[in-house]
């Protein structure tokens, strides 16, 4: 009812709430032990958040109450000390209350959804003001001559106040340091794994390709695995932006998975300009090369500020444009037609030495 402790206890023990409350009240009558037990459970029981029902919350602002208690005892302490009396007990209580208020706001309130960040800051600032103010007042109470123990306690208060003031910074520095150290350890581990994989797995994959022949099934699988592993190992160093170079590489990788071909993509120059038509045409050319010729396919991309050239070269049986039936749209439409509509040009011709086919795509930069 007050803090939801009885309800929590009841659900924990599987008893009815009324029964737990009854026991609590009876216990409270026996020298107040029920009250103490209640407070103890209330302050220290971890918050439980059932998935389907309303989360249990500490409805009472504990740290604010502790702070208020600290303030009252501090006033009492100062008043007693001013009259030259024995102020040890209220001073110690004030330190204890305020200290617990800060501790509470730093630890338990932080994870409590009902407490905002502002609330904890206010609690902390007020604690600092209270500790420093009370400490100074005590130190200069009774005409600047408090007795020795009060002076020691007052200095303790000041120190605690300063401690609370710097605590958040120290805590932040500490967590930053820990996070950085953890990050470094992770990075080291990753580098170690990368070095190990580079030395063992990549070598083996290379050997498999070496032994199995360029376009065999096994070599293709090995190559795909090698690429995946490499991407993972050196992730972060590769550019994430989808530019022409990465697009072509991705297309080549996808085609290699489906057809018995090895596409070697070489790129030169900064890929400043890119166009969907060029990419689509290049894709079609690479696909044709892989599908009809297979084996080794060379893809060369040269991009300069003024133009982009893509060469796709295979070593297959070659293609004769004129003898292609009209309804075969592949080359005529999706490569040549597409490029000319985009303001570029495409040339399909036999490869060097009359072996295979070479498709040359050319696109001038648009003058804007």
């Amino acid at each position: 009812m007050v803090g939801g402790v009885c309800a929590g206890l009841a659900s924990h023990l599987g008893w009815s709430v009324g029964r737990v409350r009854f026991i609590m009240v009876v216990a409270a009558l026996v020298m107040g032990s029920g009250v103490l037990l209640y407070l103890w459970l209330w302050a220290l029981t971890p918050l439980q958040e059932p998935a389907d029902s309303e989360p249990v919350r500490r409805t009472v602002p504990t740290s604010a109450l502790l702070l208020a208690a600290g303030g009252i005892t501090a006033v009492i302490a100062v008043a007693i000390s001013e009259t030259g009396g024995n102020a040890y007990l209220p001073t110690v209580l004030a330190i204890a209350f305020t200290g617990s208020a800060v501790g509470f706001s730093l630890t338990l309130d932080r994870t409590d959804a009902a407490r905002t960040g502002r609330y904890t800051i206010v609690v902390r600032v007020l604690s600092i003001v209270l500790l420093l103010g009370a400490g100074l007042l005590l130190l200069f109470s009774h005409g600047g001559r408090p007795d020795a123990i009060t002076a020691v306690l007052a200095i303790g208060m000041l120190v605690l106040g300063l401690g609370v003031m710097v605590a958040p910074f120290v805590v932040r520095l500490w967590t930053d340091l820990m996070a950085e150290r953890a990050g470094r350890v992770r990075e080291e581990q990753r580098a170690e794994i990368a070095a190990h994989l580079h030395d063992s797995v990549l070598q083996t994959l290379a050997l498999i390709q070496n032994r199995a022949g360029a376009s065999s099934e096994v070599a293709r699988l090995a190559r795909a695995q090698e690429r995946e592993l490499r991407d993972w190992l050196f992730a972060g160093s590769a550019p994430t932006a989808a530019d022409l170079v990465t697009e072509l590489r991705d297309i080549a990788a996808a085609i290699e998975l489906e057809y018995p071909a090895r596409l070697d993509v070489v790129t030169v120059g900064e890929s400043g300009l890119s166009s969907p038509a060029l990419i689509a045409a290049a894709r079609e050319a690479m696909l044709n090369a892989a599908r009809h010729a297979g084996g080794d396919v060379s893809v060369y991309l040269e991009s300069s500020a003024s133009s982009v050239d893509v060469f796709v070269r295979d070593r297959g049986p070659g293609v004769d444009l004129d003898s292609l039936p009209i309804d075969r749209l592949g080359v005529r439409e999706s490569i040549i037609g597409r490029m000319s509509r985009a303001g570029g040009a495409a040339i399909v011709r036999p490869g060097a030495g009359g072996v295979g086919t070479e498709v040359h795509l050319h696109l001038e930069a648009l003058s804007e």
Partner: protein
Amino acid sequence: MTSVLIVDDHSIFRSGLKASLDDSIDVLGEAADVDSAVRQVASLAPDVVLLDVHLPGGDGGGGAEVITRSSTYLETTRFLALSVSDSAEDVVGVIRAGARGYITKGSSGDEVSRAVASVAGGDAVFSPRLAGFVLDAFGAVTGEQAVADDELDRLSAREREVMRLIARGFSYKEVAAELFISVKTVETHVSAVLRKLQMSSRHELTAWALERKLL
């Protein structure tokens, strides 16, 4: 018969490579780290050393260190770099140290054998990827061109053409046919480019070398 020394720290890869090389190649020996590689180059005097770029031992310099420490034998022994990755970054260091070319470990046995033969014959072996890197590094795409043939920091127009064709996947023979020159001339151009790659003080190249503490 070309005599070969295989330097690689993975015994599986060494034996696999050894088995896949063709009959014209005689494997004299194998080495697994920098120090034993240097020793064997001196004692066996092979025609060609197939050299892994990443090697343990020595001062941690890998394949490039083997070449620099064997520099007195560069006249008679040629180095062909092998790398598991085909990124030029890995390879520029060994090329600049004196290797005559590089191929990826994924290349087939025939490809490796051919590369060994041409390196043994004094030619340079350029993969399409390395040719692409050369074009990039020498600013050939942005239109930089050497005025004199002996200029080290830029490619001549002809060298640029040759590099572009190699990057497009042409063999030396196909390059020769395409440009109406002899294969020998193509080889001369490629060797000239290799020399530039090794000697040039172009910023892009020295940056690699500096990064890898090769200077």
